[in-house]
């Protein structure tokens, strides 16, 4: 069972994510902003992180930057949930090491498909050496 963390401040989107992920076997975590998300990343060591762009306290890009700077979570793929107009932010996010992005409004089926695809891909990705012993299983 994979762990997926969603960082999203909007209660509506949070609820939509929870409903969308129902019926999958994954363990779903929700953080209300980037700072909350960073704490949860370290605590829960998720397999995949989705983050909104604009959030109070710490935004999605800062979260990605923090994760990439932190060796034991740097390998976790981060996917940006964003609106199509924010091209510059998307570019910036990719420069920060963001793995992919999904555009709002998104359909629950697309979200589930994206989670499934990235879990497969991240399983195939080389695991960083310093984390290899712990994450070998």
């Amino acid at each position, binding site marked *: 069972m994979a762990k997926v963390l969603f960082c999203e*401040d*909007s209660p*509506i*989107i949070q*609820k*939509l994510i929870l*409903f*969308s992920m*129902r*019926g999958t076997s994954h363990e779903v975590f929700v953080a209300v902003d980037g700072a909350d998300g960073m704490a949860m990343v370290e605590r829960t060591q998720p397999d995949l992180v989705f983050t909104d762009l*604009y*959030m*109070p*306290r710490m*935004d999605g890009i800062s979260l990605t930057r923090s994760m990439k700077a932190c060796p034991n979570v740097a390998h976790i793929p981060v996917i940006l949930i964003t*609106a199509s*107009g*924010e091209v510059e932010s998307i570019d910036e996010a990719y420069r920060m090491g963001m793995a992919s992005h999904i555009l*709002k*409004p*998104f*359909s*629950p*089926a697309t979200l589930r498909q994206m989670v499934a695809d990235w879990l497969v891909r991240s399983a195939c990705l080389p695991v960083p050496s310093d984390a290899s012993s712990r994450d070998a299983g």
Partner: protein
Amino acid sequence: MTAARVDGPALVYAERVTAGLDMLAVVARKDTPPAGDLIGNILLLIGEFLDAGLTGLGRLEGSALVIEQVHSRGDVALPLGMSSLSRDLFQMMARNSAMRAVVVEDARRDPLLIEMAGGDEQPIGAYSCVPLHRSDRSPYGVLFTLHPSARTAQDGELALLRLGGRLIVDALEAAALRQEVRISDERMQAAYMAMACGVLILDQSSAIIDANHAAEEILGLTARDMVGRRVPDCFLEVTHADGSPMSLEEQTATLAGARDRPVRSVVLRVTRFDAARRWLQIDAVPIQKGHDAATEVVLSFIDISERMRAQALIRSTLEAQQAANERLAALNRAKSDFILTVSHEFRTPLTGILGFSEILRDGWTSADEVRELGADIHADAKRLSRMVDEILDLDALLSGCLSLTCDWINLNHIIANAAAEIEPSHPRHPIRLVLDEELPSLRADRERVEQVIRNLLANAVKFTPQGGAIEIGSRVVGNTARVSVKDHGIGIPVDQRENIFERYWRSQNGPAKYAQGSGLGLPLVRQIVEMHGGKVWVESELNRGSTFHFSLPLQAAV
């Protein structure tokens, strides 16, 4: 004179000629008698003193001799007349510059006349003729005498004739010159008076001695008022063109000085005694009179007020245009930002509507969940609808399409209702009411005031992300009713406190960027409050919270 006429002795003749010369000298000394009178007198004198039957003045006109004036002594003149012979004779003498003055004592033995008469009988006994030349040496004509019989000329006769001729030409030329000067003077005076340029003539003490019509008109004073004054005393105030003060020394140097050097195109602003303001472009030139050190000054000026006003208008129009362009550019940028913001804000409820409806469509949900998601979809749709309303509302209010419908309203009721409406959906934000029970009713648009209070409460909730109390109060301050909404939110940086009321403006870096909304709530609040004649402002402390205040006039019947 007739008594003195005795036959022939030379002495009498000589005395007569001498007396004639003296008389001519007296006539010539008389200053400026009309030329015609002078010529008549000279002809009379010469005729009388030389005992001539006919004395005359002939003037060349082209090549013909015109007899201008004659003096005749009746008894001897009649047989002489002006024959064609004498006319031809004098005409020939006038035209021929080589001819000299002659006195012919016996005309019947004069070879010239014999030749011209061609053997015919002729009545002339004796004659004399002086060719006259103008001062430029061009031939003028002749002075002549005709006598009925041969005679003996006396010493000095020729001198008398020459002097008479000279006096005549001088008198004629002087008269012509006087006429020319008079015409020129009249022309100058007419030009001086008619010119559009104002002219003042100043004496050596800088007092005005003359002013033309334009000067009277431009300065708003009559020449009589101005004469004797100094120029700076003709105005209430004299300043530089830009209105900056000018010392009396500077004024004097420009308006009255100019003795050592001319003033060229200096622009001054003057205030006339009737308070009218004029811009004058001034030139001042000293006139040197001969070698006299004391000089007069000609001060000329044109009224360039229209030009200055036009320039000022153009300048201010350009500045206004530029400011308008800058405002437009800023508004345009803000509008682009707004579109980005709105599209972002629209996406959240849209994502909910699309996502939840997809989940409902796929039918994995219990009956309770169907109701719950249905309610969520409804709420999101309402939110979208409200955002659209706000956009349209603000546009309509700003463009003046919507006006207020005023009524007597109780602010406290409106506040309480709005709080009761918003509180259930925000359990983490208790709303505390601090209402002044004495608050009188006031005239305002109920729906719009409700909108203002709802917006401020929603704002307070929105920017207090961690939860916390919201306080809303009312009180009377002066002759206004003041409503204050206090949150314990993130606060607003000082440099953004005015911007938040601007249409389409949203914080680009501040935490407000993450809040939901159209970005139109506060601009709407300001527009509505200002349409009521009130005002809205904010006090804030970063990370401690903000208090939004608005005040509405109490008595004003809006």
